[in-house]
């Protein structure tokens, strides 16, 4: 991307009869976009290239990473994450596990809540729609840090959530000190496993340095508090998307199906939901992309604790670079994360472009998208 385009187009444009109003557009165009090109180039594209370079070094933050004194690490920063037994891989795989459970809970929960709220708010018989819409949407425009402070207070050991639970006779957990996995707690509670001596078949085998038992821990109790916060903040935005889609649905269709005697449930199942499919897909994929980027809440509420059960790849990359001064490894983690998110984004764009195409996904992908 250089500014050579301007000098190339000018003579061509001058020869056309439209010079009067379209002349000098080449140079003006580049002049108009040049601030954007410079800022985005220097603070977005250039940094990505620099970080890619650093991810192949063992730079410790001292001096410039672009001098010959900085030791090169080759692909070690990457292989350490996947292939080499050690703390680096253990932490990385733990963060991947934590984030997977986080995605698995946040995406369905926020989608179901957003869709249900939109359907209820959209009912024509209800009054006060705008009040409810405002109430549900407001959390998502506030500062993530400020709201994390509030939830930290709400989830204190003697805090509001435990007070409500106590009202129902339930002894609430010590949220941000509790590293027990939810699946372990449930299985233990049902008496299926003994958490003090877990089955040897699960602890004896490992995948990527983490035992099967640890992979199957589920989100920790502390992570559940973060999940609650995130679902609470994001549902409002997604509700708005569903709501605007619902309001764009042709009303004749509602009337037709109701006149035909469809019950509410049938109407929802066979008329409304199929029409909401594109929005549903959009919300699901935006959720998938967003949930891999969780950072602010982890930074403010838990810093990855307790026992690393709220560590996510985004926070691990930050911690590795800025707390442990291992910038190479931190950059490598963020590139893996980048790869995960970009893959999800490209998949979304690809499918959204062909969303009128009703063939199954696998067939569209295998046939290269040709109709």
């Amino acid at each position, binding site marked *: *991307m250089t500014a050579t*385009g301007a000098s190339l187009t000018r003579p061509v444009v001058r020869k056309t009869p439209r010079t009067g109003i379209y002349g*000098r557009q*080449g140079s*003006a165009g*580049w002049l108009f*976009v040049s*601030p*954007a090109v410079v*800022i985005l180039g220097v*603070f977005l594209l250039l*940094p990505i290239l*620099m*970080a890619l370079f650093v991810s192949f070094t063992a730079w410790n933050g001292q001096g410039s990473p672009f001098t010959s004194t900085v030791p090169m690490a080759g692909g070690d920063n990457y292989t350490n994450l996947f292939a080499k037994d050690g703390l680096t891989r253990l932490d990385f795989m733990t963060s991947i596990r934590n984030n997977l459970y986080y995605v698995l809970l946040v995406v369905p929960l926020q989608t179901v809540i957003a869709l*249900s*709220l939109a359907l209820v*708010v959209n009912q024509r*018989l*209800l009054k006060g729609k705008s009040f*409810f819409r405002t*109430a*549900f*949407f407001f959390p998502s425009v506030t*500062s993530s*840090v*400020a709201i994390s*402070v509030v939830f*930290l*207070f709400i989830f*204190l050991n003697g805090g*509001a959530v435990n007070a409500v639970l106590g009202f129902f006779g339930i002894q609430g957990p010590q949220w941000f000190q509790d590293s027990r996995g939810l699946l372990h707690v449930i299985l233990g509670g049902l008496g299926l496993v003994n958490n003090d001596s877990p089955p040897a078949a699960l602890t004896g085998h490992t995948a990527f340095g983490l035992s099967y038992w640890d992979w199957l821990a589920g989100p920790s109790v502390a992570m559940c508090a973060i999940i609650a916060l995130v679902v*609470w903040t994001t549902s409002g935005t997604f509700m*708005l998307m569903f709501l*605007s*889609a619902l309001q764009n*649905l*042709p009303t004749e269709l509602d009337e*037709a*199906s109701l006149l*035909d*005697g469809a019950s509410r449930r049938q109407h929802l199942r*066979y008329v409304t939901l*199929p*029409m*909401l499919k*594109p929005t549903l897909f959009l919300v699901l*994929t935006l959720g998938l992309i967003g949930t891999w*980027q969780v*950072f602010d809440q982890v930074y403010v509420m838990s810093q990855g604790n307790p026992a690393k059960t709220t560590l996510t790849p985004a926070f691990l*990359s930050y911690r590795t*670079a800025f707390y442990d001064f291992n*910038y190479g490894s931190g*950059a490598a983690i*963020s590139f893996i*994360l980048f790869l995960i*998110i970009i893959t999800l*984004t490209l998949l*979304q764009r690809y499918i*959204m472009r062909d969303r*009128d195409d009703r063939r199954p996904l696998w067939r569209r992908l295998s046939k290269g998208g040709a109709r």
Partner: protein
Amino acid sequence: MTAVTQPQLDVAVAHSVPRQRDGGGREPSLPPSVYGSPARRLATRIGGYAVLAFFAILFIYPFVIQLANAFKTEQDAAANPLSPIPSPLSTASIERIFVGTGFPTWLANSVLITVLVTLGRVFFDSLAGYALARLRFRGRRVLFGTVLGMMSVPGVVLLIPKFLVLKQLGLYNSYAGLIIPVFIDAAGIFIMKQSFESVSVDIEEAARIDGAGIFRTYWSVVLPTMRPALITLTILSFQATWNEFPHTLVAVQSPQYFTLPRGLADLVSGSLGAGTQYPLKLGAALLATIPVAVLFFVFQRYFVRGANEGGSKG
């Protein structure tokens, strides 16, 4: 976002639904009866309100807790966290926010940075958006493709890269480091380009034929017609910059440059972090939320517009 895909098919499905038991003797030509018997309608309505009320409490009560506890004494907040009424009412924490923490500095920094970045974004995003929408120059398509690509680069993977480039350019730990990297954003350019394309080109051509230059046409003819888009962009920029946290984490280090989110995070997880002083922390978080809250209640429809545009960009 056109949600209507092949409506014929869906209607066909609807028609195949068997006729209902309770709708047997109903006249299909009476629209009100379509929504069920009066008793059922009432039940649906009550059920709907019950669901909405439950969720409304769930969504609003955390803010009530925040507000109430900011005015409680520390003992009261610890003993009755759920109570919406402080007893006794105490403004000690609020006062301490202003004299005992860096809050005044954070507030001043946040105001300065938010105003500058919002101005920068509104001007330069719309300038670039106009060029991409209207001007014909070589490389325009490639440029727009790049802007689209940049929108999907997630901010959290840029933490280390941004830190590197700020250090390299000598901008680390300065106001310039806080402002310049976020001065122009790809999403804003995209929103402006779409908005410029949605208005007619006639008025511009008339202005150009009358002899107005390109910049003048943009500035005095086109831009004044773009008010809604500009307000949306202003609000989105204000909100995003006011709430911005990760960027401040890698751009500055000294407390003198802290913005409100950075200061708040420091207050919670830093030296003062140990479990106590919640009325103070909640009060500081409350004060940091107020500007965006006011903006939200005044310009709600632009927030809604922004949320939907954010969704359809995918």
